[in-house]
């Protein structure tokens, strides 16, 4: 047997079969069966090939990942991250009984936010899991990508599953310095859309005028949906200086761009558009000074037409189905008018007085709703307060906003502390069943009074004999938002109470379980946070009594 026979010849014989194609003569030993001779030769070739393997030629090496000069995570925090990421694919919020263990998936966003606030760098080995987590959960994306940093973006280039990271990249690491006008101009002209949006925001944060000038250089050639996004980025740091630009955008080809420009202008109470809208709205709403049997009354005369000027100022002429044209137009006029015109127009009254005035012909809801939208748009805390009314008053009996969504938006305009105490009083008066949305706009961790109000209300619900899963939404929020320091006060609620008369069967045990989970989640959050500060001090350990 010699080695001159080529591998290809052997393969051909094997494919066709030795009956049809005799193996090359030099592999055949005398008296040997053709298939056996072929197998012998093939074994020799195979081993020779494997034993003689050579390395491949190296392909072009990728650019190394950019440096990330953020701090390295402390070791305990690194372990915690691995744990939070290991749990990420667990089914979350499937309802029913959840046991006493914390839901780690829900804590990941909080952990990421805190890690970013501390300026930590993501450990390289965690990047794939982090990108996978961000891929599956939109709410996680901004924080996860910020944490993943430049090396995360570098890595995402190689895996099509992680394309989203490049598309949505805030690009913090690749943006040129805003002072470098040449680099800024170049990126503005050649960058990807996401990069340009990020660039515009970055420049605007430094110098609003420069940002507008940059936008103006290419405005007329941008596509309509891009113009809309760029215009939207003026929302941050909006000022009277933006008025001329916005006023021009009122004549834009695109209806959506026009509407956004009008909305932004109406949030500037000194703008010409606001003045025009105010003039229109003022003709519609007036005070009947003669007074009816109940004293002064607001009279509403809704517009009879939506003319071209109104449309140019962003008033949409066609109402959604089920709404009357005239009330639709009225709502838009009032919403876009500066709230400051009303005290003068309505007899020198304060906002608090105005919202209690009776309104003729069932226009109350329409008018108050428009004022609510105006208060939110103009971020006017005084009006928001007036429209919210005192928290203890029933939402149905109160002035202004009656829907929880509206109330939540109004609350958003109040200072953080006031927001929390308003919601606390609301819960104390009305319980938890309507509090969910309102709690969502409160700052985390919850203030002391707010946290106590929630816990008290849960305690009352338990004593009332209902099941905890009627409150699972609030319970879940409490796990994420209560101040971890509250854990020790809650310990007492984890005991299983004696079954009360008329209580739902077994509810006590479930409540105990729910409170145990709350306490252990709070402890875990405290641990998470102290791991991130790298604080060697043991946080206070509650005494178990």
């Amino acid at each position: 047997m010699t080695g001159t026979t080529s591998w290809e010849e052997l393969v051909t014989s094997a494919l066709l079969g030795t009956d049809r194609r005799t193996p090359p003569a030099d592999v055949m030993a005398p008296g040997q069966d053709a298939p056996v001779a072929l197998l012998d030769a093939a074994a020799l070739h195979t081993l020779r090939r494997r034993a003689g393997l050579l390395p491949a030629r190296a392909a072009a090496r990728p650019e190394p990942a950019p440096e990330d000069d953020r701090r390295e995570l402390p070791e305990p925090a690194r372990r915690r991250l691995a744990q939070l990421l290991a749990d990420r694919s667990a089914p979350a919020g499937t309802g029913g009984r959840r046991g006493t263990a914390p839901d780690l998936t829900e804590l990941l966003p909080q952990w990421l936010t805190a890690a970013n606030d501390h300026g930590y760098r993501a450990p390289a080995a965690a990047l794939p899991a982090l990108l996978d987590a961000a891929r599956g959960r939109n709410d996680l994306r901004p924080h996860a990508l910020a944490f993943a940093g430049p090396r995360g973006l570098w890595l995402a280039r190689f895996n099509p599953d992680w394309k989203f990271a490049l598309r949505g990249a805030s690009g913090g690491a690749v943006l040129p310095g805003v002072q470098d006008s040449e680099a800024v101009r170049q990126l503005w002209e050649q960058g990807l859309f996401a990069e340009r949006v990020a660039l515009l925001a970055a420049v605007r944060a430094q110098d609003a005028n420069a940002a507008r000038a940059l936008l103006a250089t290419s405005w007329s050639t941008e596509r309509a949906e891009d113009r809309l996004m760029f215009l939207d980025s003026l929302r941050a740091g909006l000022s009277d200086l933006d008025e001329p630009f916005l006023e021009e955008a009122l004549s834009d080809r695109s209806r959506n761009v026009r509407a956004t420009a009008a909305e932004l202008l109406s949030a500037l109470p000194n703008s010409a558009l606001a003045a025009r809208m105010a003039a229109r709205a003022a003709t519609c709403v007036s005070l009947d000074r003669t007074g009816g049997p109940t004293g002064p009354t607001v009279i509403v005369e809704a517009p009879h037409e939506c003319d071209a000027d109104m449309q140019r100022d962003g008033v949409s002429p066609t109402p959604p189905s089920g709404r009357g044209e005239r009330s639709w137009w009225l709502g838009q006029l009032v919403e876009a008018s500066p709230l400051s015109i009303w005290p003068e127009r309505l007899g020198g009254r304060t906002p608090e007085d105005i919202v209690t005035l009776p309104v003729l012909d069932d226009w109350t809801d329409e008018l108050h709703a428009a004022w609510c939208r105006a208060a939110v748009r103009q971020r006017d805390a005084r009006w928001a307060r007036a429209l919210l009314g005192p928290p203890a008053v029933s939402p149905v009996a109160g002035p202004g906003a009656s829907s929880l969504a509206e109330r939540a938006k109004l609350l958003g305009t109040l200072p953080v502390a006031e927001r929390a105490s308003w919601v606390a009083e609301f819960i104390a008066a009305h319980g938890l069943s309507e509090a969910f949305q309102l709690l969502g706009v409160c700052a985390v961790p919850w203030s002391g009074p707010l946290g106590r109000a929630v816990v008290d209300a849960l305690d009352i619900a338990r004593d009332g004999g209902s099941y905890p899963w009627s409150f699972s939404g609030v319970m879940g929020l409490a796990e994420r938002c209560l101040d971890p320091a509250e854990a020790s006060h809650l310990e007492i609620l984890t005991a299983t109470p004696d079954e009360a008369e008329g209580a739902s069967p077994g509810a006590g045990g479930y409540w105990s379980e729910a409170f145990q989970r709350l306490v252990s989640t709070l402890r875990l959050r405290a641990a998470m946070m102290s791991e991130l500060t790298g604080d060697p001090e043991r946080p206070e350990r509650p005494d178990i009594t």
Partner: protein
Amino acid sequence: MDIAGVRWTTEQVLALAPDDASRRAGARLSAAGPWSDAGSSGEGAVWGLCKGSGKKPYQTVIDTKGPAYKCSCPSRKFPCKHALGLLLLWAAEGTAAVRTVVDVGDGPAPDWAEEWLRGRRKRSEEQEERAKAEAEGTAGHADPEAARRRAERRAARITGGAQELEQRLTDLLRGGLAAAEQSGYGLWEETAARMVDAQAPGLAARVRELGSIPGSGAGWPVRLLEESALLHLLDQGWLGIERLPAPLATTVRTRVGLPSPADGPPVKDHWLVLAQYDTSDGKITTRRIWLYGRESGHTALVLGFGAAGRSPQPALPVGLVIEAELTPHAGAGQLRADLGEEVGVPEATGTAPPGGTTTAAVEAYGSALREDPWLESWPVTLTDVIPVPDGGDGDGWQLADADGESALPIAPAALGRPGLWKLVALSGGGPVTVFGECGHRGFTPLAVWSAGSSETVQLT
């Protein structure tokens, strides 16, 4: 050296989980909430009470030497989620920077835990005595004559199987491989069953492999010819085994499926646990653990087996160093070894073993083939290599020498695994040290160390 040894890391604990579901369940139990009376001893025992849905909490105790687990829960998973949760809790405390959740401090074990731990200690002492007795030749309970007759009978059956298989292979070559594509899997399955009957599980496994090749995509005829030829070589090796040198004969016996004795001189060393991973054929899960001896410089493979649904034993914490005695199996070029009964508490984090270039790696595989022609791959450590996309139009990757123009392609099976991305992330385009298996299909990375770090990052 701290007497309690190094506590394991989260990753090391999670690697012990039998499946993903228990990994997640364990992670969720790793917070203080349900645990009470938790503690650990200086000898590596960890225990705790975990509140479940019932009235009585579960009693969980772990002997990290081994490791071995016991839990009063009804789970058939092994280790169960409680054991994993408790180990995670214990691991998290190991950093000692914060002790916030549950204090798994050192102290005496409660009675229920102590009872089991005492039982384990006693058993291991008994085993040691028995081993000693056997070594002194006092335990000759087996009848050597009967054993010899049994072995002869089995050898005869294997010979029958090997002859039948030779017939089958020559038929295949006579009729042509092209026909094999049509004949389908059933025919091979039947032949594999005949090899099981012939008590040659090694041959059976290879036959099953052959059956899967015609459906394995482009180039299958070449692969089928290669594997048929190597199987033919193994048959011939068995049929002419008395003419082979002793070490090669042992290798042939092992490859055919006869157990080879672990009778080499034991090696006591500080072993760095390089990698641990499981593969399953549906019935049996095989665990492979690669170890590197700090003093001896040996690389050894410890195998473990588990029936479906059970995690194979042993389980060792990747990245840590354990002091243990390994007994090598006989056979030419064999790396397999048995782990001695007494495994010390994991001691320290091990730095990367010494390694070489990609060229040295393929050479190492090539010379290992001389001892064992059926070898699929060989364990090697690559120093200063960079993961690089291979530039083709596929999703291929290679490991390229940082200095030089040589590279090893990553084995196709490893391309779909999450470990690949960890490897790329850790390198960030710069040189890393990688341990893995180098074979004719490419390189399978199993562990990586980044520059200037002693941390072993698992890629399995």
